[in-house]
């Protein structure tokens, strides 16, 4: 695979679901038995992007934005209504075995391991499904067990493992066939912070070792910040932003935070901006991004300023704002 051929190409991808709809009540229910009214839900409406081999891309968006639907179209689970998706040159919806061998899907809210058996038994099942040569299978398995530091846990019935331990097993199971593209849908869902960090470190290490392409959705910005140099923000089924994380903050953060420490009391900073916090001589102000330089200059000129810091808002706030507004400013 040449580095110049993209791993994933998505062009004008559209997915429209038809959902039955009816008014509440018995009569309406009976009526709908005979005449079903359907409403079209535009889950994904014209998404385009290209991902190069080895890239780790964060896929962001609020619930219902179309992230999972896009992921499902890229893994061949859903047929696109229109548009085109290519993964390593394959059309996912055809579900060709050669394609399926090169990808993997991990969903934080689903499990595929046998509940009552040790994970090792489930791994054997996966070996049979992918027809992995025994030596190669054992080497990969032991490497993954090592990397995730799960040791003897693979011999315990899965039902006796903690949520985080179980997720690690799921990840091992999903990677035994050495896929070249990882589709991770909320892989850290519900895990505690330490476990999230471990999984994150693992994904980064796996990407570094194997050069696999990773497309990741997560609600936890920490995941995205730690792993993804590039993010694609999707909202109402459309791409709002595609680029480096830092540019996202630049583009969408409409406000700056000014943290001002005064040399003496008595001054009132209400006239300079919205006061978010006030603690003795220390003020936290929120000002529109465009006006930040002017306000800073005015503060320095007109108030007894001992110290002044300009802060970008945390990425979480920026994302929240992006979703709330829905259009770039």
């Amino acid at each position, binding site marked *: 695979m040449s580095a110049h051929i993209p791993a994933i190409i998505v062009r004008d991808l559209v997915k429209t*679901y038809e959902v039955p709809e009816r008014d509440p009540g018995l009569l309406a229910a009976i009526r709908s038995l005979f005449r079903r009214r359907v409403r079209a839900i535009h*889950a994904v409406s014209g998404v385009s992007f290209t991902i190069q081999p080895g890239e780790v891309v964060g896929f962001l968006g609020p619930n*219902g934005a179309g992230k*999972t*639907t896009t992921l*499902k179209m890229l*893994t*061949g*689970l*859903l*047929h696109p209504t229109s548009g085109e998706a290519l993964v390593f040159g394959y059309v996912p919806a055809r*579900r060709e*075995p*050669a394609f*399926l*061998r090169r*990808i*993997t*899907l991990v*969903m934080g*809210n*689903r499990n*595929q391991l*046998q509940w*009552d*058996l040790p994970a090792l*038994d*489930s791994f*054997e*099942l996966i070996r*049979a*499904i*992918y*027809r992995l040569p025994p030596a190669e299978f054992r080497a990969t398995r032991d490497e993954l067990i090592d990397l995730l530091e799960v040791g003897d846990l693979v011999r315990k019935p899965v039902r006796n493992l903690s949520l985080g331990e179980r997720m690690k097993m799921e990840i091992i199971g999903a990677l035994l066939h050495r896929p070249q593209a990882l589709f991770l*849908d*909320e892989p850290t869902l519900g895990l505690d912070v330490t476990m999230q960090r471990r999984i994150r470190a693992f994904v980064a290490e796996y990407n570094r070792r194997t050069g696999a392409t990773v497309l990741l959705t997560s609600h936890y910005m920490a995941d995205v910040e730690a792993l993804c140099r590039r993010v694609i923000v999707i909202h109402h089924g459309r791409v709002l932003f595609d680029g480096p994380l830092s540019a996202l903050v630049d583009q969408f953060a409409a406000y700056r935070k000014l943290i001002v420490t005064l040399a003496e009391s008595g001054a009132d900073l209400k006239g300079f901006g919205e006061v978010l916090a006030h603690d003795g001589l220390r003020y936290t102000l929120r000002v529109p991004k465009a006006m930040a330089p002017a306000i800073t200059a005015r503060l320095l000129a007109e108030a007894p300023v001992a110290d002044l810091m300009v802060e970008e808002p945390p990425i979480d706030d920026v994302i929240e704002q992006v979703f709330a507004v829905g259009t770039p400013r």
Partner: protein
Amino acid sequence: MDVARIIATFARIGILNELQYRANFFFQVLESAIGLATALIGLGLVFRHTTVLAGWTPPELLVVMGIYGVMIGIVQAVIQPNMLRLAQDVLEGKLDYALTKPVDAQLLISIREWQVWRFTNAIAGLLVIGWALLWMQASVRLEQIIAFGAAVLCGVIAIYSFWLILATTSFWVIQIESLINLFEGLFAAGRWPVSIYPSWLRALLTFLVPVAFAVTVPAEALTNRLTGSTLALAAGVALGLFVIARLFFRWGLSRYSGASA
């Protein structure tokens, strides 16, 4: 063969799973014994009034009962659990992992569940068949055994295909439990040779719910009734149902959208 290897691996894992619940084994043996006793008492009651039922003697009817046990054992051990799981996975959108594997989806969804203890019904059925053959003092010829084996295979394929069609409807219909109850009710009619039923019911049991092919035809093979054309018809029905079921399943799969996470 890869398919055989995959099936064997799944069966092994299924057995490992069931071994965790040993109590199930004893309950199942008890259930099989009660089921068998009830059936035998029923048969005994019938033959207090008559010695021949639509041309079938008591030991011959015992053969039918035994084959019914074999079939119900196979259905309950493998076919029904897998099809119920399919319907449930479709309903809950949990088919995703099965569909991202480089193995034929129909194969995969058909071999995931193994309720091995249920095979006790099949073993009980085989014992009943053996007992009936001794009673008849029949010498069974080799070609009869081959024909019997072929008829059983056709029967299993027909029943499997029928179940797959039933479970595939869950891509459109939400609840299939009532359909399953209907199947079990109709399949219970297979305890008797279909020739004892009125013609409309016989047609239903032959072509709609393929009980006739699953139970009566194998019984005919062991009781010197089977003609070559009946066996050919059974093979044709099994093949036809299988093709229809496969096409229908693929169509259903293309409609699968999964529950959004």
